[in-house]
Structures are given as C-alpha cells and as structure tokens.
C-alpha cells in the first residue's frame, strides 16, 4: 500500500469535516483509526508522486526509521483523540490537519515539502494552543514559529542555489560528488538548524515553550509536548544524520550549545515548584539530549529515547494537565492527588521513574547504552553533563512524586475517567515490559536508517 494514503485520507476527512460540525468528531476518530491500522501495511521504499522520478518530483520515503516514527506518532495521536475528542469537538478539523502535517513531516523526502508540512502542522498547533485561553502566548508561539520556518526556508534556498536540488537524497549525493567544501555549507546549515530548533524546543530558541506548556491542560500538553516533539525529533534526526553532518569547530559549538540547553533546562526544572513547569523544563532538557545523541551519531538509542520520552510525557501531561485544570498549578495544592487514584498514581510513578532512568524501566536501558557508547568514544565532557543532569532530574522528580503521593491536609478533588486510567495503565505497562524484556529492543540497530544505501542504489 502506498504511504500517500496516510496523508490523503485524513486530508479528505478534514475537508469533509468543515461541512458539518455534527459528524466532525466521528471523522476524526475514523481518520486516526485508519492511520493507526494502515501504517502497518505500507510498503517500504521510495514512492514518487505524479509520475516523476526521484530528483524531479516530490517523493515519499519509507524505511524502518520512518515506520517507527509513524507508529509512535499515529498511536499516540489516537490516544489523544480518544481521550479528549468529547470535550474538544470544535477542534476536530484542526486535529485532522495536524495529523496530515505530522504524517507528511515524517514521510516526505523533499526539503521544500518538509517546509510546507512544517507550516501546516505549525498552524494547526497554533490553533490548538488557543484552547489554553491565553491568546498572548499563542501569539508569541505564532511569531516564533513563523520566524523559525522563515529561517529554515532561507537556509534551504541558499542550499538550493549552491547544489541545485531540493530532494534530500539528491542533495546528500550532490554534496558528496561535487566536493563542496564544508565551510561554504555552514551558513545554510546553521540557518536550517536554528529554524528547526525553534520547533524542537532547543535553547535559546524556545521562548514560546514556557507560555504554551505552563498553561496547558491535558489536551494541548499531551499533543505538543509528546506527539509534536516526537515528530520534530525524528525529522531533525534524519536531517542531522544525513544532511548537516556537523564536523570540526561547528560540531564543538553545537555540542556546547546543546549541553548548555541540558544544564539550564534541568536547573530551571529544579528551581520551580509548579508541576507543569517542572515537566516543560525537563522536556526542554530531554529534547536537547535527543538532538545531542543524533549529533554524536547514536541513531538507535536516540530513537528509543524519543519513543520512551514521548510515552512518558504523554502519561505525565495527561495526568498533571488534567489535575491542574481543575486545581491550582502549585505542587502543594496537588499534594495527595494519588491517594484516591491509585492506578493513575502507579502509572505516573512508572513513567517518571522511566524518565529518570532507574533500573527495571526502559529509560535505564537506554541511558546505560548511550553512556556506554559515548564512553567508548571517550566523550567525557558529555558523559559528565548527562550524569549530573540525571542526578538533578532524579532529585526533582522524586520530590514531585512524594508531594503527589503523601499529604497532611485534605486531598484535591479530581476525577479521571475509566478509559483514561486504562490507557495510562497500558502505557505504563509498555514502559515496564520493555524495561524487563530486552529482546525486542535488540532487534533494531543503527541500520534502521537506510538512506545511505538507498542513495547508492538510486544514483
């Protein structure tokens, strides 16, 4: 089956959902269900559009890397829709457009098409974030996002003027064969990196994150912090691995920038006492770690880290965002939340412990493996920063968990539906099972990314 259906079917449903508001929520459920089922049947390889062969036309590219991304994004999107569609009916069309944009971002093999999908998913995200009822922060997000994508387009056009192509694989091939010196590629690559860095929450381009996520309830929080973050990280990883390929002094600058991002994110998470701010600063730090792993060339562990983070963030933002909508944001008012909701409490605890990287959970496995590989490359500075950040992370997460489990005064009154509890339990079980049974994780290794082989076949 052609992967174009993952984009085309939600697009049709989005157009149809404009007509009638009554059927729109069912169309959203139909679209996400279709995508979650259809993604298991798509055929890997290059799919060109409009009958034009690879360097000319737009193409979609599917390999194991893309498949993992598609599976994570579509299944998490399905969970978001199932939980929240009842209360957010007026965002039905926007949700479908967001689904189109996210699938397109993962699938496309054309860098300009990537820009278009970046804007589509970006505009959908701006509209979704209006449900926070904080228009000033939405406006800030819109301005930052537009500047980011403009800078990405600027860099891409300079690259096009140099190499004369817009196709990802063709660009990689041309840069290799035409012997373009790296020094003349720094400017476009830096502009594209900054442009995508705005969306990927990298410091110092992430001024919008605080405004959006610190007021987010479960709906916006789980979509932007989990689904969008996973997608952008997958796209970013592919660009870093194949197009940017930082080297020399620029590698040092980027690494230091990312390390500063990790340290500052963890420090700010440590110093705040609001539940959602802890989560958002920690997700800034996690995004920097993921990009750092990609820059260092550790493909598979970065991918696992993205997936584990997306699931854990989904659980945390659903639980805390839901509780904070009805109560105040401060940790002290939320204390004792889990005494009534033991299932939710256990799921949240598992997700948090997995993010901290304690043994028995999947986060531990990932952390040990990438630290080992970095030690083999003797990147001691990075290892020290990562371990220190893990310690800080442990402290503030444990502090948060103890606040949420135990309390002296009366407990806050928050209701969780049974369906939500079941979904959270499934996700927590997922994190636990993959932490104990390690067999499935070793099925994949760094060869999940097939672009280099594909280029040799094609050109």
């Amino acid at each position, binding site marked *: 089956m052609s992967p174009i259906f993952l984009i*085309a079917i939600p697009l049709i449903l989005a*157009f149809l959902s404009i*007509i009638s508001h009554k059927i729109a929520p069912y169309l959203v459920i139909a679209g996400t269900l279709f995508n979650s089922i259809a993604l298991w049947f798509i055929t890997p390889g290059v799919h060109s559009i409009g009958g034009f062969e690879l360097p000319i036309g737009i193409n979609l590219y599917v390999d194991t890397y893309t498949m993992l991304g598609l599976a994570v994004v579509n299944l998490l999107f399905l969970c978001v829709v199932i939980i929240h569609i009842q209360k957010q009916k007026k965002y039905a069309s926007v949700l479908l457009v967001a689904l189109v944009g996210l699938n397109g971002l993962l699938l496309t093999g054309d860098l300009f098409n990537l820009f278009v999908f970046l804007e589509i998913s970006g505009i959908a995200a701006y509209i979704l974030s209006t449900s926070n009822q904080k228009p000033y922060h939405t406006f800030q997000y819109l301005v930052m996002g537009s500047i980011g994508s403009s800078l990405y387009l600027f860099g891409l056009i300079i690259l096009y003027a140099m190499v004369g192509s817009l196709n990802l694989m063709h660009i990689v091939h041309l840069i290799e064969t035409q012997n373009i010196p790296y020094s003349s590629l720094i400017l476009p690559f830096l502009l594209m990196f900054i442009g995508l860095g705005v969306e990927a929450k990298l410091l110092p381009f992430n001024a919008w994150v605080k405004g959006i996520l610190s007021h987010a309830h479960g709906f916006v929080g789980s979509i932007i912090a989990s689904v969008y973050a996973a997608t952008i990280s997958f796209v970013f990883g592919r660009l870093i691995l194949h197009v940017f390929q930082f080297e020399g002094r620029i590698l040092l600058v980027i690494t230091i920038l990312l390390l500063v991002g990790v340290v500052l994110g963890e420090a700010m998470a440590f110093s705040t006492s609001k539940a959602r701010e802890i989560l958002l600063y920690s997700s800034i730090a996690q995004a920097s770690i993921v990009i750092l792993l990609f820059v260092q060339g550790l493909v598979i562990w970065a991918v696992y880290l993205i997936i584990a983070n997306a699931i854990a963030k989904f659980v945390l933002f659903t639980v805390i965002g839901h509780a904070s909508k009805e109560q105040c944001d401060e940790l002290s008012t939320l204390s004792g939340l889990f005494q009534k909701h033991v299932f939710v409490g256990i799921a949240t605890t598992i997700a948090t412990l997995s993010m901290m990287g304690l043994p028995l959970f999947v986060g531990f496995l990932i952390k040990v493996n990438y630290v080992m590989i970095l030690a083999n490359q003797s990147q001691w500075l990075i290892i020290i920063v990562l371990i220190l950040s893990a310690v800080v992370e442990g402290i503030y997460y444990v502090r948060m968990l103890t606040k949420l489990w135990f309390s002296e005064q009366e407990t806050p009154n928050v209701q969780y539906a049974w369906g939500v509890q079941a979904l959270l339990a499934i996700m927590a079980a997922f994190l636990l099972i993959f932490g104990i049974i390690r067999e499935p994780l070793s099925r994949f290794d760094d060869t999940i990314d097939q672009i280099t082989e594909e280029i040799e076949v094609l050109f």
Partner: protein
Amino acid sequence: MKKLFGFVLVMALGIIIILSLQANPEFPAFGDVDLSDRISIRFIERDAMGDILYGITENLESGAANIVTAIVVDHGHLTPGGGFPGGTMIASSILLLYLADDQFRSKVKTFKWIEGLAGSFYVILGIIGLLVSGYFLKNILPNGVIGDLLSSGMIPIVYMLIGLKVGSEIAGVIDHFLSEEETI
C-alpha cells in the same frame, strides 16, 4: 538609543550574510546562474520531449483579459494565473458584495459546502491517478494541443477545484473578520 543599537546590530547581521554569500564560491552571483546543474533544467528537457506542459502565452490580449476571474482560473495552464490568484479574486468580489449589501451574510453559509467538496474532489482526483497508474496525482487525461483551452491534462480541472476552494475559504475568513462573532 536602543532602537539605533538594534538597527546597527541587525544591519551588521545582514551585511555579514551578504559578505559570506559573496565570498562563497559555490553560491552563484545574481543573474549568473548556471541552470544546467539544477533539477529544474530536467523539467525543461522533458518538456522538449512533450512530457510536461506548464503554460503557454498565446497573445498579449490574455494579459488584459486577466481581470475576469473565470479567465484567470480557467486559463491557468495557458497564461500566468491559476487557482490561487483566481480564488483570491473570487474572494475579493465577495468582499465587495459584502461592503455593498448588508443582508449578504446569510448566503455565505453555503460556501462551507463548496469548500469541503472542492477540497475533497482534489484529493479524490489524486487517488484516482494513484489507482489508475500507480502514482498519486498522475495525469490520466490526454495532454492535448499546446494553446487550446482543453489541454494540459488534469491541470485545468485541478486549478478550477483549487480556485473554488480558495475562493470559498477566503470568503469564509472575510466573513469571520467582518462579523463580530468569535473567530477562533
């Protein structure tokens, strides 16, 4: 003072970008582009073989005729123009109707139908191409003779759908802006 500082800073950034582009041997100077190393030259090469058609200018009259929206949309494959500018012109004419007639609002509701159906037909057209020939949006109609109104395969149909879609969509946006109801 702050403004002056910001201006100097930003201009310095611009001049740095310009200088680095000038010093870059790979970056072509203005007007000095070698098209043979760009992928777009392959379009032109294939064009010579008659594979692709993307526009023909018949005579100068077509420029004057562009004022009429229908011609802009219908002749998108022959002259400059096409779905998006034409659709925007439709929306502008609706804007004028708005300014002239206060009662116009009630009729605007039907635009939602046009918008949804035109968009859906566009995707369905693409899927038909996929089912018939294996490529999404593959041209399945004959190319025709250069210069005819009914040429260039599916492009006129696609342009017409896009024109309807864009026109009704932007009319909806204008409707939201002029009415006092909540936009978001």
